[in-house]
């Protein structure tokens, strides 16, 4: 019984972390059809920038916001400077975002060295919480709560604001969005900023669990892909459900079928792509 | 067997809550020129798509010369003698006109699996491609790339590709769309010259050309057949005015 409860909690906590990782990826992918392979790099950069801020004495949450803004700004620059000209050129986008991820990885290594950089959770969230006789990390519950808050915020943004309406229109039909007078280029900049901001923020929030280390980017990017494939591209509920699904598959899968740990996430991804390529909540079919 | 070249028998198709085609029946005799008219969104192209096999009707049957083809894949229908042109041009822009027609010929004649011999060296096929182009007045342009041709020439290329396949039944989706008066006249003359062993079903908004061309006319609205008859009957019928003008 305890196994099921604690692994469920693990799954939910990991799902929260994955949502912070993949929400931005899904948004960019859905609206702009850009498979942003630099997303893992942006996430890692966020973690490093957050750690640096904290070393300067900035409190955790402020550091997270600062890292999000910094990474978001970088994302906007990259979108405006490089990716915008590649609109519609899928291979070009793949190549450019991969190139960016190479450079981010290399410069992070140059700047922060190879050793892992720890990020400490806020002191009050550090001690484990005792639930029915067993301990569970308090911070992970906080990550879950924070992810849900972010999800709610994003939902409000998408459903209740004019920007959100434009984004939704753009995801559903770009030609139509353009024809009703939405300035798509500014919308794209805004979305790329938002996506990159979420990546940077997620890097810091995930920091106390993952820490910042070389290779964090390549460890995380496939997870974001799996989430988005399972949940469906460009769908916020999809990203949320996909994140929790991946959390559940990973935690229970590795616990119950340890021999499949290396492929546990990609087998469901293959199955989903073969059975329903648009994902659970996908509105975009191709 | 059947006296009909194309027989659409009571087909219906729904997309979500929307009925795109409702109990449509269409019987086209061999050699007939049939015109489909109706306002935008009446379901004309949707009907074409089902005849061509882009998607399957929810119910009903489609037959070509009495042969059942309701659930056959498109490529089989093409081999049975069905060809189609598109309202929105779908050509291969970086290739020559000759190459475009050759692709059409490969589609019906096979030979597309050959991986070694050069397509350009298939002289017989190239000659027939040139013939098909000459038949629509593009004989001189065979070696040009599609990207370097005019819109009117592309319309005619569409026609050449369909005719090259020697279809028994030809579906023409607005073959005159977007053409100038001169070009329209050229295409009209071409259509006139298509031999009567080809049955034609055409969607067209240019009533001057279309009405003169058609033997029988079917009026569609909201996915349903409103009425069917000869030129004179359809023009005379008050329902035609109703559909087009709304009361």
């Amino acid at each position, binding site marked *: 019984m305890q*196994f099921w409860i*604690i*692994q469920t909690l*693990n799954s939910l*906590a*990991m799902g929260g*972390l994955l949502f912070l990782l993949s929400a931005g990826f899904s948004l960019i992918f859905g609206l702009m059809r850009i498979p942003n392979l630099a997303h893992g790099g942006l996430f890692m950069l966020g973690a490093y920038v957050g750690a640096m801020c904290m070393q300067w004495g900035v409190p955790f949450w402020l550091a997270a916001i600062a890292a999000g803004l910094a990474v978001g700004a970088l994302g906007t620059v990259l979108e405006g400077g490089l990716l915008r000209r590649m609109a519609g050129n899928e291979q070009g986008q793949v190549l450019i975002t991969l190139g960016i991820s190479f450079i981010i*990885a*290399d410069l992070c*290594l140059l700047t922060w*060295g*190879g*050793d*892992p*950089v*720890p990020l400490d959770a806020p002191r009050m969230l*550090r001690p*484990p919480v*005792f639930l029915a006789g067993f*301990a*569970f*990390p308090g*911070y*992970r519950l906080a990550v879950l709560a924070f992810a849900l808050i972010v999800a709610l915020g994003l939902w409000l943004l998408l459903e209740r604001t004019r920007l959100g309406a434009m984004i939704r229109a753009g995801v559903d039909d770009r030609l139509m969005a353009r024809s009703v007078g939405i300035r798509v280029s500014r919308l794209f900049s805004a979305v790329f900023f938002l996506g990159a901001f979420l990546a940077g923020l997620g890097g810091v929030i995930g920091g106390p*669990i*993952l*820490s910042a*280390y*070389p*290779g964090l980017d*390549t*460890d*995380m990017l496939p*997870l974001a892909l799996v989430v988005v494939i399972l949940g469906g591209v460009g769908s916020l509920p999809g990203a949320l459900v996909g994140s929790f699904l991946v959390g559940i598959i*990973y*935690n229970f899968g*590795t*616990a119950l079928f*340890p021999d499949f*740990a*290396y492929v546990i996430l990609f087998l469901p991804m293959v199955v989903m792509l073969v059975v329903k390529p648009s994902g659970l909540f996908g509105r975009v079919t191709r | 067997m059947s006296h009909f070249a194309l027989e659409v028998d009571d087909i219906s198709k729904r997309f979500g809550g929307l009925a795109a085609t409702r109990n449509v029946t269409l019987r086209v005799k061999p050699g007939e020129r049939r015109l489909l008219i109706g306002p935008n969104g009446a379901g004309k192209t949707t009907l074409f798509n089902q005849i061509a096999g882009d998607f399957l009707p929810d119910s009903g049957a489609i037959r070509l010369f009495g042969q059942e083809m309701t659930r056959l894949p498109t490529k089989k229908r093409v081999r049975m003698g069905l060809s189609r042109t598109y309202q929105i041009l779908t050509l291969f822009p970086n290739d020559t006109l000759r190459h475009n027609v050759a692709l059409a010929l490969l589609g019906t004649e096979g030979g597309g699996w050959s991986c070694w011999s050069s397509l350009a060296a298939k002289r017989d096929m190239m000659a027939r491609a040139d013939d098909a182009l000459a038949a629509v007045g593009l004989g001189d342009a065979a070696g040009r790339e599609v990207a370097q041709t005019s819109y009117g020439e592309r319309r005619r290329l569409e026609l050449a590709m369909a005719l090259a396949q020697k279809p028994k039944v030809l579906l023409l989706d607005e073959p005159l769309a977007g053409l100038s008066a001169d070009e329209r006249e050229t295409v009209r003359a071409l259509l006139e010259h298509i031999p009567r062993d080809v049955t034609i079903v055409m969607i067209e908004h240019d009533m001057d050309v279309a009405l003169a061309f058609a033997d029988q006319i079917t009026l569609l609205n909201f996915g349903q057949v409103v009425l069917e008859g000869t030129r004179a009957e359809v023009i005379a019928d008050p329902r035609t005015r109703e559909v087009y003008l709304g009361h």
Partner: protein
Amino acid sequence: MFTLSRRDVFKTGIGVSALALTGRAVRADEPLRIGFLTVKTGPLAAGGIQMEQGMLTWLKLNNNKIGGRTVELMVADTNGVPATTRTKTAELVERQKAHLLIGPLAAFEALAVADYTESHHMPTMGLAAFDEGTQKGAQKYFARPTASAGQASHAMAAYCYSELKMRRMAVIADDFAYGHQQTSAFLRVFEDMGGKIVQKILPPLNAPDYGTYISQIKTDLDGIFMGFAGSNGFRFTKAFFEYGLGGKIPLTGGLTAMDEAILQQTGEDAVGIMTANYYSAAYDNAANKAFVAQMNKDYKADPGYYASGPAICGAVLDAAITKLGGKVDDPDLLINTIRSNVVENTIRGPVKFDAYGQAIGNIYIRKVERKAGHNVNTVIKTYENVSQFWTYDPVEFMKNPTYSRDWPVAKNLEN
């Protein structure tokens, strides 16, 4: 560009003709060319950068001389990809005419170049810890002054059983060869002495999070042995404390579970963790004191597993080449001298080699202590003259399969 290629042609010409005449005869005042295979880009770069720092520091302390000859250190970045390692090795050997090689970092890299270096008679000082290198796959031109993957684990197992009186333990390690070999070595000695390994957990190398694994750990254990590499020991330990297990079950580990490279980051959570290694930054001899001081000065870091290896190579090479009077042109003589020498004062203490090219030396049991806000791996027990075969007979030992995921079979697992 043109001059470069011409010079290369020229060099090649000399190299070929020289080889034809005398094997590898070259002018005596020529520097000693050491090819140094490390990883400076990509996810494995952390260890690779420390390797280079360790080498540079040792050379600095020794006036850039080995065996009286000036050293030309040729550093190659393998990116941690076996195919690149192979190409870089060829570059060092064929283009840059290295006299000997140090490295590479990872086991799979070493395996990718093993046949090449052997067939080119290239003396290679191995650093990667993999058992094959000095056991069934032992090679003539290979010597490893550090440790095989299982070498330190044996000692840790003995310590856990005899000194800590542990009887029920769990092992957890990265699911790849290095992790398998460390835990299997531990399991063998621990169970041969009478203990029981009741749980074996192997998370994937790239596990995003250890929460799910930590939740599975049994609560009635005497201790846990960790066979982690890179930063995983640090991440596991942090999660272990997050889940409230810190201090409840003693943590022990192999070579890299609590390396100096991750020791500071782990903070107070690391205190009390016991690991076995051939080296400790806190080991007390003159060579090591100077080495650690210089590392602290230049890089503000304590040397650990990765930085110490090249420094030990330096000392071993220095002794051998001094003995040869600076002559390194005969690869057979060089490697034989390296392997037959006994070197007393390396930074890990005395080093000698067994018949398979693996160093026999001290294995230290180290316990993390916190001194003035700084973590140190204090040596609490020294096992002297530890062979890679522990106390087993080498021939008998090698009749068994090489340590792996599946051997020895863990017979006492409870589920």
